[in-house]
């Protein structure tokens, strides 16, 4: 197996982009990434996307994007793993290059969510849950996460205010990210007074519905040094799964797929959580930030919120998270999110993150979660 590196990145702004279609979003990211890599034609295109069928009325998506990116004829496939679709496509691209099957691969994550209204998007997102035993009861993704949050608060005696640090941090970091959806800071009171969506989760605790696309170009590490001034090596790539339904888990407050994928990733990279300089985690809801920090080895169980309360998740903290705004404030175009995380981590490792630069960043970890932890995909990058 050969070592794999990232030699190109591209992204579109995240937001409600009424004037841009799914094909144009994706092709803009692909073309930008190919340009950054100095490549004309890759061997294959893998597209991470969850909902192009129900939301954009478009399937055979990867073929369309290949054509619209000037790549008609290349191998092209769509990869789906709910909100983890982006990282799942990266995993496929990684396997293709690591195995030696392909030399140059472009991986794109894209989601176009605003062509239908919010109620339709909510029901489409619920297809990542158990249709017969969760969705039919009128549960939403927010209410599933809300039940986790309430149980967590009760079991570990954690007050509601303890979660405020997560969205406050994400919004602060989005201010200087030109591609972020919400580029305004919020304070603790904004969080505490926000409108309830599914209690105890409020508006400022939930990642927004948005449009966006991001892409990366992969090649062997050996060749990467010839092609790019600052290649970033993929030191680990791992996927783990859990039950899709929350109610099928022995211990819902332990994200076992997150734990397994993180531990396998540390093992592959030969490092531990203490070595990670920044962590782009899946902050769709702050309860997931807390549980992911715990399951990934950054905090003991029940103490994930303490890192936020004590300021350890900021750019100068012990473990910076959501350094460009995260899902909460950069935005969460679901199938694209996993690639945005990687693009942002590459910017950090290249030293190109501007005012959000984590000084001396050498190891970055990205973690993309599908459903309420049913799929977890962790990558560790070295640069």
């Amino acid at each position: 197996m050969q070592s794999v590196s990232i030699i190109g990145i591209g992204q579109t702004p995240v937001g409600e982009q009424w004037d841009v279609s799914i094909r144009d979003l994706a092709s803009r990211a692909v073309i930008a990434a190919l340009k950054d890599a100095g490549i004309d034609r890759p061997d294959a295109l893998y597209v991470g996307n969850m909902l192009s069928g129900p939301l954009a009325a478009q399937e055979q998506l990867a073929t369309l994007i290949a054509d619209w990116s000037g790549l008609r004829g290349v191998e092209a496939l769509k990869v789906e793993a709910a909100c983890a679709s982006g990282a799942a496509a990266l995993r496929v691209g990684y396997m293709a290059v690591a195995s030696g099957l392909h030399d140059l691969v472009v991986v794109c994550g894209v989601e176009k969510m605003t062509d239908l209204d919010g109620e339709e998007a909510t029901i489409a997102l619920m297809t990542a849950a158990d249709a017969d035993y969760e969705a039919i009861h009128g549960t939403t993704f927010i209410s599933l996460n809300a039940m986790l949050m309430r149980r967590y608060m009760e079991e570990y005696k954690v007050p509601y205010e303890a979660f405020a640090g997560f969205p406050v941090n994400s919004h602060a970091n989005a201010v200087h990210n030109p591609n972020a959806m919400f580029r305004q800071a919020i304070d603790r009171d904004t969080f505490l007074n926000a409108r309830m969506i599914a209690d105890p989760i409020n508006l400022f605790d939930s990642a927004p519905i948005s449009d966006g696309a991001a892409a990366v170009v992969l090649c062997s590490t050996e060749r990467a040094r010839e092609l790019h001034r600052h290649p970033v090596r993929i030191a680990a790539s791992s996927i783990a799964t859990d039950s899709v339904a929350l109610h099928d888990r022995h211990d819902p407050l332990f994200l076992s797929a997150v734990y397994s994928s993180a531990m396998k990733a540390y093992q592959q990279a030969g490092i531990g959580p203490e070595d990670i300089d920044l962590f782009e985690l899946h902050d769709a809801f702050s309860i997931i930030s807390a549980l992911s920090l715990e399951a990934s080895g950054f905090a003991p169980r029940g103490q994930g919120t303490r890192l936020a309360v004590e300021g350890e998740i900021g750019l100068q903290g012990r473990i910076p998270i959501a350094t460009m705004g995260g899902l909460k404030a950069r935005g969460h175009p679901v199938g694209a999110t996993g690639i945005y995380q990687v693009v942002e981590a590459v910017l950090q490792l290249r030293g190109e993150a501007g005012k959000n630069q984590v000084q001396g960043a050498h190891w970055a970890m990205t973690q993309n979660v599908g459903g309420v932890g049913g799929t977890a995909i962790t990558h560790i990058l070295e640069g």
Partner: protein
Amino acid sequence: MRLAPHWRVRAQRYQLRGEVCECCGRHLFPPRDVCPSCHQPANEPFPFSGEGTVYSYSTVYEPPRGYEQYAPYTVALVRLKEGPLVTAQLTDVDPEQVHIGMPVEMVTRVLREEGEEGIIIYGYKFRPVLERAAASPAQ
């Protein structure tokens, strides 16, 4: 219109029928072909009592399409007394009164109506355990 998916699970929706694994004794809801615990085939039907307690809950203010008329409503994870967790709505209760650990029991209710032309989907919800009528009439 999706008909068969609801018809297929009628024993689960109306009777809370699950399974007991003959190998490890674990109670399973919903039923499945392989026990997730011991990985042996599971196919012995088991009707659950419908008694349980609230493990966690959330009141939904922004519902998905098809549930607007019911909002706000409270969804819960209920720990059945035989072991499994089940996702369902709570009914016949003020959301303010719900608490973790609250004893609940299964009832059959309308889960969703799909308009004039559509079907009415029935299934289980859970309500607070009713105070039983005083055991003995006036003496």
